[in-house]
């Protein structure tokens, strides 16, 4: 029992000073629910840790300076070439520091994975409705973190001052300069004068290694603390209610699992960096404002901005001697603005439209919120079209399609595809709901055909078990105030919140947002796909887990 003794000795010493026994015990016994999608956020967290570790290593050798040097290092092909100290020191990290290339590549792969994981995590949160009350603030923090991640990535890959990243920086400067009224000033202040100047690398460096990581640490800390304090959401399942959490305790289960996951993440980035070369800056050469290579592509997470710039028609106004460069600042700011603002406002819009101010700790299955899921898919389709257009030259090359044709298709697709995605997704969700209702009413087909005495063939079914029932159960929707004042055959008197233009907008939106296939085969005709009926007839139509309405065995 030496472990016990050592623990009580150290633990006692600490508890004497910090009064931690109760708090730490609570922490240890905290229950974590399990679902594979909960690991997406963990990937983001652990790639951030990897970025801090590898970034610190790189900072020991990197020289954030645009001072001109002549290269005489180990990469012979660039001998005698003028370049910035930043680029030269990146070459040195790659070829003259043992493990330097590996750290650089892990840093880059981890950065790509970081943004991808944040993106996937946000999509997960959105589709299961985990942003709902009481988690709106954490959702907003997440959006800020995502935006910061894009900025941090842009600064990071610009630091080596190679030809490829220089093109990205030039585009960034061109975009900044195009912003009405303040653009020219912003550009001059950021770059310390005209582009490119000699200030931008050291300035981006300090933002990249201190300011933004500091913000990351603070916001990730808040993000995790809030998650911890509010307790994790969980997917619907047997025994899961809005009042409990089912899973395994922090100590030892979650600690061991999440520790293992950290190692998996690190192993994945290390192996990617071993076998998949990323950002070979020595092949691009040092930055030079006169040169560029065809097929220049930014890191994947900047692709949607690139595509947006590429598809924009050449619109510009000149009014009273001032230039409105719509061709630049609209594509640079509007798509990101739509996605981010839309995402930030959505929880509050949804609350207002549905009137649902309850706490939600059990996630929705995406099919059970058809409109939300459809909106999410529309947003992803919008992003996807922009992203593909960002690689239009690569697509044209690989698929032998005329370049301009792709851009012209994209100009239409950026509006059409999200609409199609919305409609198709909503149909699929409603179809899946119908399937659930079918399962509920008819049970699961067993694949056994029986002949009845009268000669009739039937297929045997079994009722859903508890787990399956719990899965397809839906929480009761909230009825808007107007729902209570509608009477058959008479004109409904709108409730106070539903009067006037805004109230009618709310009622109409409510009808769209809450559209679902009724679960018990009755009620909710107001939400029917045909949209007939009063928007005020909101009858709670859902069942909850273990309700009496299990399917009959056979028909």
């Amino acid at each position, binding site marked *: 029992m030496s472990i016990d003794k050592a623990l009580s000795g150290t633990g006692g010493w600490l508890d004497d000073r910090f*009064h931690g*026994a*109760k708090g730490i*015990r609570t922490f240890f016994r*905290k*229950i974590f629910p399990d679902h594979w999608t909960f690991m997406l956020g963990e990937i983001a967290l652990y790639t951030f840790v990897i970025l801090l570790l590898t970034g610190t290593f790189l900072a020991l050798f990197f020289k954030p300076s645009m001072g001109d040097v002549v290269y005489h290092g180990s*990469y012979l092909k660039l001998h005698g070439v003028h370049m910035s100290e930043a680029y030269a020191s990146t070459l040195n990290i790659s*070829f003259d520091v*043992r*493990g*330097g*290339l*590996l750290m650089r590549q892990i840093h880059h792969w981890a950065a790509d994975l970081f943004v991808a994981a944040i993106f996937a995590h946000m999509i997960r949160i959105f589709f299961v409705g985990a942003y709902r009350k009481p988690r709106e603030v954490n959702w907003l923090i997440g959006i800020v973190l995502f935006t910061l991640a894009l900025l941090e990535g842009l600064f990071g890959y610009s630091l080596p001052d190679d030809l490829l990243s220089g*093109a990205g920086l*030039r*585009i960034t*400067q*061109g975009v900044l*300069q*195009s912003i009405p009224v303040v653009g*020219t000033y912003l550009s*001059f202040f950021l770059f310390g*004068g005209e*582009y490119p100047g000699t*200030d931008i690398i050291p300035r981006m460096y300090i933002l990249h290694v201190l300011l933004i990581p500091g913000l990351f640490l603070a916001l990730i800390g808040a993000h995790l603390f809030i998650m911890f304090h509010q*307790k994790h959401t969980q997917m619907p399942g*047997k*025994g899961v209610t809005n009042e*409990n*959490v*089912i*899973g*395994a305790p922090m100590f030892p*289960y979650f600690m*061991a*699992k999440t520790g*293992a996951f950290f190692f998996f993440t690190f*192993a*994945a980035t*290390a*192996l990617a*960096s071993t*076998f998949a070369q990323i950002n070979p800056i020595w092949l691009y050469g040092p930055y*030079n*404002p*006169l040169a*560029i290579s065809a097929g220049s592509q930014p890191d994947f997470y900047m692709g949607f901005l690139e595509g947006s*710039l*590429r*598809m924009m028609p*050449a619109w510009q106004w*000149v009014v009273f*001697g*001032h*230039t409105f*460069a719509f*061709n*630049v600042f609209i594509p640079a700011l509007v798509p990101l603005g739509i996605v981010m603002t839309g995402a930030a406002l959505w929880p509050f819009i949804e609350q207002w439209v549905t009137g649902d101010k309850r706490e939600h*700790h059990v996630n929705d299955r995406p099919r059970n919120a058809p409109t939300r899921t459809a909106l999410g898919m529309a947003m992803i389709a919008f992003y996807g079209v922009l992203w593909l257009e960002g690689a239009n030259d690569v697509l044209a090359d690989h698929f032998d399609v005329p370049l301009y044709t792709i*851009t012209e298709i994209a100009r239409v697709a950026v509006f059409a595809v999200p609409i199609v995605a919305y409609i198709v997704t909503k149909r699929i969700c409603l179809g899946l709901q119908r399937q659930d209702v079918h399962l509920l009413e008819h049970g699961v087909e067993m694949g056994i055909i029986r002949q009845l005495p009268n000669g009739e063939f039937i297929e045997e079914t079994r009722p859903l078990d508890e787990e399956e029932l719990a899965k397809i159960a839906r929480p009761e929707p909230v009825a808007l105030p107007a729902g209570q004042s509608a009477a058959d055959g008479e004109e409904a008197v709108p409730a106070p919140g539903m009067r006037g233009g805004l109230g009618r907008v709310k009622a109409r939106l409510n009808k769209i947002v809450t559209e679902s296939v009724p679960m018990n085969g009755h009620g909710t005709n107001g939400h029917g796909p045909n949209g007939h009926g009063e928007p005020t007839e909101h009858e709670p139509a859902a069942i909850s887990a273990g309700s009496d309405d299990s399917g009959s065995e056979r028909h």
Partner: protein
Amino acid sequence: MSDSTAGHGPGEHEPGHDLAAGGGETQAAEGAARRRVIGTPSPARSRMLLAETAAGSTAGLPEVREPELPADPQDMDDAKRAERIVAACFVLAMLAGFGFIAAYLIFQVHTVTGTWHSNLALGLTMGLSFGFMGIGATIWVRRVMPHVDQVEMRHPLRSDPEAREAFAETFADGTAASQFVKRPILRRTLIAATVPVAVAPIVLLRDLGPLPGTVLDHTVWRKGMRLLTYGANTPIRPADFSSPGGMITVVPDGFQDDFNALAKAAVIIIKFAPGEVVYTTRSAPADGFTVQNWTVDNIVAYSKICPHVGCPAALYEQTTHHILCPCHQSTFDATRGAKVIFGPATRPLPQLPMTVDAEGFLVAKSDFTEPVGPSFWERGNSS
């Protein structure tokens, strides 16, 4: 934390609770706890296990008995097998870890091949080491540790009315005591005092860069300045072009290595066959473009900086005479004043007025007659 929220579950003594409760925990916000003597254990429970509330809403869940966690795995034989696998994983992880250190010492860099081998060896050993740790730990949790499914109750996040009221009182008392509301002169002067504090950091950023002024309207090109081929830095005679053909990047003499100058002053010149270039004049623009008679011997000079966002418009297709910017595919017709024929650019590439000097070398006639590069607010209608 949520543990101080009242209004849930009957208080039953938890094992280990006494250990901590003695230390002056004061949960004043709790309605029930307000009347209790400070220093006695709180009736509030930090959590409840299912077994203790099995009659309640959590019916049907697997029972969890005390002690909180089972000491042994349910399937001892499987755990025994898994134990060996986990140990093997950890041994492999250790070996790979030592392999990493060995690889660091064995594989030297300073050459491309050496770096390649070093990267392979270091990355592989590192990846394997972390990978085996992860695999081992996962199997440990899943097969060696007993399987548990526990229930923790959530508490409403909203504090109970008493606590909210008490907070409101405390806040009101504090506000009153601070005199902040009662004495507007204090309040207003304090707010006034913070205004410069808020503005000062922005003012402090003023020296980040010079004001733009009109520098974006001009480049370094001057009358008589020679066009040098980029890289070789040699002046060019029209006769050097034996035949019409490709595009050459040229730089202003004296600014070959000045990136700030070149970011605006880079120029491309193209030699055409007679009759290929369509001329108009500024006074009579046809078809929305202008080519001044600034050419020499069918050689035309355009800015290389794309008027969209400033990438070098570096791709030239000889058969169609199209100049393409590889960043966003703005396409310019070189025979027609570099007029935009596709893409997001709103203006043609500006043309550099050009002539030959006494020695027959190509020189600029003047600076560009309009700002080059991306649009900016103050640019105005100068194209």
